[in-house]
């Protein structure tokens, strides 16, 4: 019972953190009437971009996990403090208009909420014994037990000589260890329950936000969200994104397929639409999305390929050099990752587990 209560607190605190981070950025962009769900999503990407940088530095400098946890605690406290002070009024305003906004959706909103609850509930109860979960959850539980970052083989417990390039940069699993350390819950609960539910919720929000961008009316966006969830629930094979959404929710690969891809598509569509939204802001958002994607999985190449496939031809056809420059900036994190990965894989350098 104690673990369940602490897990719930961890979940709520993280949602507050993401909301604060996203709202603060929206505020900096001088947007007063931003969507809370959009702020939550942006905050999620921004947080994991920051986490990737801090965790990577801790990893290469062989810092213990508890030091990383303290650093993240300070960062989170500052973000929550600033977010609550500066954006609290905006949230209250949005909540006051909640009733009218719900009316615009109509009855279909009930089905959307039911579908989202279904996905989150599934993430909450799903039991996965796959070999991949052994590795990714094992990374968190091993880091927590040994108070180190990446220095032990998560599947056997043996000491590594060097960190494998494939796992050296995808540091999202250590976020689970940090949460477990800060909230005093087992790493397996942080990974497979707390983060699973958050990831499922974020995926649904990303899909809804994409629907709002693709389609003109809220009702159409609702239909879009329901259809995506239904199609994911009725995905025939283990390779389709739907299977990852429902059964591997805690894995970085799921985040690539079901969170980063909708966000990447959203940004690309806005660029095609020559949206009224500031283009610079779009490319900054792209930067955060791809930086967070680096922390999720080495499959970051997939959304990068999509963004290049969508925006490179567009910029060449429309002779839009600014779009090309924006793309290069937006995909800078995976480009840096690719260079480091190749050099690391060819032993130009290695990330040692000892100084």
């Amino acid at each position, binding site marked *: 019972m104690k673990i369940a209560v602490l897990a719930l607190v961890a979940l709520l605190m993280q949602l507050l953190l993401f909301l604060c981070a996203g709202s603060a950025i929206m505020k900096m962009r001088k947007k007063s009437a931003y969507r809370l769900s959009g702020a939550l999503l942006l905050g999620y990407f921004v947080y994991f971009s920051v986490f990737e940088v801090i965790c990577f530095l801790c990893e290469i400098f062989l810092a213990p996990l508890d030091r990383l946890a303290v650093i993240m605690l300070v960062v989170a406290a500052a973000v929550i403090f600033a977010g609550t002070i500066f954006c609290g009024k905006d949230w209250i305003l949005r909540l006051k208009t909640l009733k009218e906004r719900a009316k615009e959706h109509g009855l279909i909103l009930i089905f959307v909420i039911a579908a989202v609850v279904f996905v989150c509930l599934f993430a909450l109860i799903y039991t996965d014994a796959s070999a991949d979960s052994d590795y990714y959850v094992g990374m968190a539980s091993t880091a927590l037990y040994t108070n180190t970052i990446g220095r032990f083989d998560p599947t*056997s417990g043996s000491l590594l000589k060097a960190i494998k390039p494939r796992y050296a940069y995808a540091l999202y699993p250590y976020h689970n260890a940090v949460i477990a350390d800060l909230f005093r819950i087992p790493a397996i609960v942080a990974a497979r329950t707390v983060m699973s539910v958050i990831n499922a919720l974020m995926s649904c929000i990303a899909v809804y936000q994409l629907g709002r961008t693709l389609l003109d009316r809220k009702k159409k966006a609702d239909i879009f969200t329901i259809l995506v969830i239904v199609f994911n629930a009725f995905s025939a094979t283990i390779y389709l994104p739907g299977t990852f959404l429902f059964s591997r929710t805690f894995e970085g690969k799921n985040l690539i*397929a079901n969170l980063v891809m909708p966000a990447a598509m959203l940004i690309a569509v806005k660029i095609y639409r020559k949206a009224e939204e500031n283009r610079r802001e779009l490319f900054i958002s792209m930067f955060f999305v791809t930086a967070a994607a680096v922390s999720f999985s080495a499959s970051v190449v997939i959304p990068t390929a999509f963004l290049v496939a969508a925006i490179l031809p567009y910029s060449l056809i429309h002779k839009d050099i600014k779009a090309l420059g924006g793309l290069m900036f937006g995909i800078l994190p995976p480009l840096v990752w690719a260079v480091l990965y190749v050099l690391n894989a060819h032993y130009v350098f290695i990330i040692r587990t000892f100084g």
Partner: protein
Amino acid sequence: MEGVTVSKYGLAFVAESLRKYLGESWLLLAVCLLGMIVSAVLVSFGDGKSKSLTSPGLKDVTCMNWTVLIFLSLTLYNPVLVKSLIPGLGMTTVYYRSFWAFPIVLAAAYYLAYLAGGFQKRWLSAMILAGIVACAVIFMPLNPGIRYHLQLPTNVYKVNGAIPVLADAIHEDFEQTDQYQEKMEKAANADPETRKGLRKIMVQTLPKCVFPYDMEFQVRQYDASIALTCKRDMRLYYEGNRSTGVTYSGTSGAYIRRKRILDGMYGRDPSVSVSSFRKAMEKTKTNYLVVENDQDSQDFLTAAGCSLIGDIAGYHIYSFGLTKSGEKLLPASETAAN
């Protein structure tokens, strides 16, 4: 993607990967392509009067979808490029993920939502949406994750209910052994800043175990203070799973020893002798074996010097090479006689 390799399929590798990727969900690709074709026709040849059909933004989304599809077909999905590049990059087993780069599910849902939401009359939109959902339910199989693996967790950790009990029993036994006390004394004087010291503290003080296949991958998620004799890829390979792309040759000493232990504990290979099994246990420093009650080769394990220390939740726990104060470690022949 097991069984689908460039060497086997050549230029048909991409098509075969796509076929296996979609399976019975090919309908989604059909809807997506149909939506893209119809939209392209409407946008290109529409007279502009039927504005409700082509606005807002259908043109931009369709244009983007076609651009992405064409670009990816020339690059990531190009059979000639894939054939020459993918094996060298070691990406054969995970090539299927490249299909995520063209979001079929999102695009199919977009065109259908556009269609269903395009009517003024609400009941008509609702009927079309219900029809689409019904078609998905009837014509597409349920997600394999939901279909095969849905079971309510029995504990807050969402692991096999026997694991916490078995882990506790192993720790309780191990902490009473002379070997544990000795290792703890060494660890107390070790320097955690050195590689040797950290190994003494964090590796050598852990009980090293072998668990049944269905438990092995859950154990260290639940309890990282248990070390495992087999690494993940090695255990998968032993059990016949080739999806990781990692192979172990018959000359790999590390693999042979672990194979010998697993063969011996389950009585799978009669050629494994008691002495070779003992050597493998000693060399790998394995302390505990956990075997299903109905599958263990008890006589063989006892003859090899393993002691049954517990019969818990349907599993036998054997210890090997461990002594408790006052006890003497018996050689294999004497253990068998007892």
